[in-house]
């Protein structure tokens, strides 16, 4: 049976403010979904809510993996159930080496019933595997000895996230703007790396503004999110069109969602920065 991640009628608030207003989305393992939308429309919120961030309150709806609700599970149990998110801006953990961090992570994800203090993956095999994956991603072996995301450049951070995805081999992975802040060559490398990890062995939700990350990872579905709802779903051609033409046509077709979007952005005080054309931004 194919694994399936189902989001139904998902409503999420952050600090009492409604961000998602009824999201429906179904991802089967092996499928690639692109999620696009203007800043502040709820893309990252969807990812963080799926992973179980404590500040993101699910007020209505469901998140199910193979028909079993994930809502009551703490984030580490969702990870052990096979979910992964590559963060847009991962935090640094000073003093903790990448290799040690990933050894704990890989052990927990591969042995979901492991109790704390039980054996980790054998050092020798783990190192060999890690070295291999880092070679594939064209990463300097020294990287494993650096502290988690500490002093990493934007490109290094993104590659470190992809490396973790490669090591953890999740069933479903959310890539939150893995292309942001990268130059063209770096985006191409990231795109190829994701493909090489075996993008068809996972279910992928790729949150992006570009179409470059999708070059080697052609989406089966492209979703447009606006005002906290998925308003339109199409094929790969939709991603290209949005990238070229922006969201004005979408806003015109979905005035209610556009109104919610405007209201949300007034509340947060953010201004719509990609009016008609794509503007590179660091986060939302």
């Amino acid at each position, binding site marked *: 049976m194919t694994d399936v991640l189902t989001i139904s009628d998902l409503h999420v608030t952050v600090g009492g403010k409604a961000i998602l207003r009824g999201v429906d989305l179904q991802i089967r393992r092996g499928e690639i979904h692109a999620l696009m939308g203007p800043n502040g429309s709820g893309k990252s919120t969807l990812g963080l809510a799926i*992973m*179980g*961030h*404590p*500040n993101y309150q699910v007020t209505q709806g469901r998140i199910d993996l193979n028909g079993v609700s994930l809502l009551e599970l*703490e*984030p*580490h149990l*969702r*990870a*052990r159930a096979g*979910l*992964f*998110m590559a*963060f847009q801006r*991962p*935090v640094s*953990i*000073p*003093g*903790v080496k990448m290799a*040690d*961090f*990933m050894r*704990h*992570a*890989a*052990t*927990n*994800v591969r042995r*979901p019933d492991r109790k*704390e203090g039980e054996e980790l993956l054998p050092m020798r095999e783990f190192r060999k595997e890690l070295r291999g994956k880092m070679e594939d991603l064209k990463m300097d072996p020294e990287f494993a000895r650096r*502290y988690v995301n500490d002093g990493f450049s934007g490109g290094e951070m993104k590659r470190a996230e992809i490396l*973790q995805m490669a090591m*953890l081999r999740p069933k479903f992975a959310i890539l939150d703007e893995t292309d942001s802040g990268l130059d063209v060559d770096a985006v191409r490398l990231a795109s190829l790396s994701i493909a090489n990890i075996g993008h068809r062995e996972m279910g992928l939700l790729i949150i992006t503004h570009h179409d470059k990350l999708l070059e080697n990872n052609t989406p089966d579905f492209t979703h447009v999110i606006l005002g906290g709802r998925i308003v339109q779903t199409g094929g790969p051609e939709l991603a290209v069109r949005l990238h070229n033409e922006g969201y004005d046509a979408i806003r015109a077709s979905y005035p209610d969602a556009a109104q919610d979007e405007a209201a949300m952005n007034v509340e947060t005080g953010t201004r719509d920065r990609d009016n008609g054309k794509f503007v590179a931004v660091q986060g939302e």
Partner: protein
Amino acid sequence: MSVAVAAGFSSQAFEQFLGGLREPEWSTDRRRQAWQRFAELPMPDRTDEEWKRTDLRAFAWERFGPPEPWGGAELPPALLREGVELGGQHTTANSRTLEAHLDRRWISQGVVFGDLEQASVDHSELIQKHLDRTVEWQADRFDAAREAFRSGGTLLYVPRGVVVDQPLHMFAALGPGGVDLSHTLVVLEDGAEATLLAETASLDSTADGLHCGAVELCLGRGSRLRYVHLQNWGRGVWHFARQEARLGGDASLQWTIGALGARLAKVNQQVRLDEPGAAAQVNGVMFTEGRQHLAYHTRQDHNAAHCHSDLLYKGALQDKSRIVWRGMIHVAPGAQKTDAYQRDDNLILSEAARADSIPGLEIQADDVRCSHGATIGRVDDELLFYAQTRGLSRKEATRMIVAGFFQQVFDRITIPSVQEALAEAIGRRVREYQPS
């Protein structure tokens, strides 16, 4: 042999204590002076700047007395000697020597390691010359009590030019209600080198106990000492200590303290750089939980030009515990080209814990480089969440963040057994982060 004495720190107890000693006259004279001071001095209270943040009201002298003999119970485990080939071992319990051993190789080169009380008989001149030369012994009641009833204690003496390349271990244990009034004296003559690993522990993890002690490190010119002191008493122990080092020209000291135990600790740690070219690195690793209260007052005294000192303290606090650090770098007139640094970082693991971090500088020379830093932070929820999305439980993530926090100071400790023992002991204590 010790004799039974009257309970409490009374005149009667003092006279009985003296009656049981066999020691040189100079030592007894000093005890009498100290006893006089003890009788005269008031108990410090919170109007005293030095004791402002450390509440002594629950402490009662009457509950304790001069050290009682060890009942012969099995000793608590020692942590620092794991996997280390030792050149010598000195073990005390309730301030009395149980075992003293030094490899023949070092004995034949004139090294002395063992009971200080015995040494003050066997090497009277040496001890008289060095004991209390550095360390304050009559400033407050704890100093005076320690000096009057000084018991057991440890001497390490390394003659000129002798390099002891095997670590020496000293272990002080306390029984329930036990008292330890020991003095550690380390004398390295010019060009000598040694590594001393000292640790303390209690037989019972919650029972009462009292330690009033002193550590005195005397480093001759060009000598090198690595000294580790792990305070790992049980949670019922009152720990009062004066710890001072005096460095001659081009001497080098690496001083690492680990503080895990005690109900309340008040420690004055001081490094004096008395001649040009002396260098001291001070490392501190603290972890507190329950209602523990640890107060560390540190001083880096630059009394000569071209000296270097670098202090890094790191503390993590759990439950309702509290750590106080007051640091002072003092640069004397004429101590030009001083290079001095102090830094204290604290990681709060529960809303109810509290850290006070007070750095200070007093500079009376004009061509110096001195700086300080202090941080107090909490375990960041975003870090916990990130680690959780990688499959780590909150507790495991907290442990990892705490280990990372200490890594910078562990990286400076060049003795693997010490790094491992501290990391292991802290790892065992860390629980899940406790928000309010």
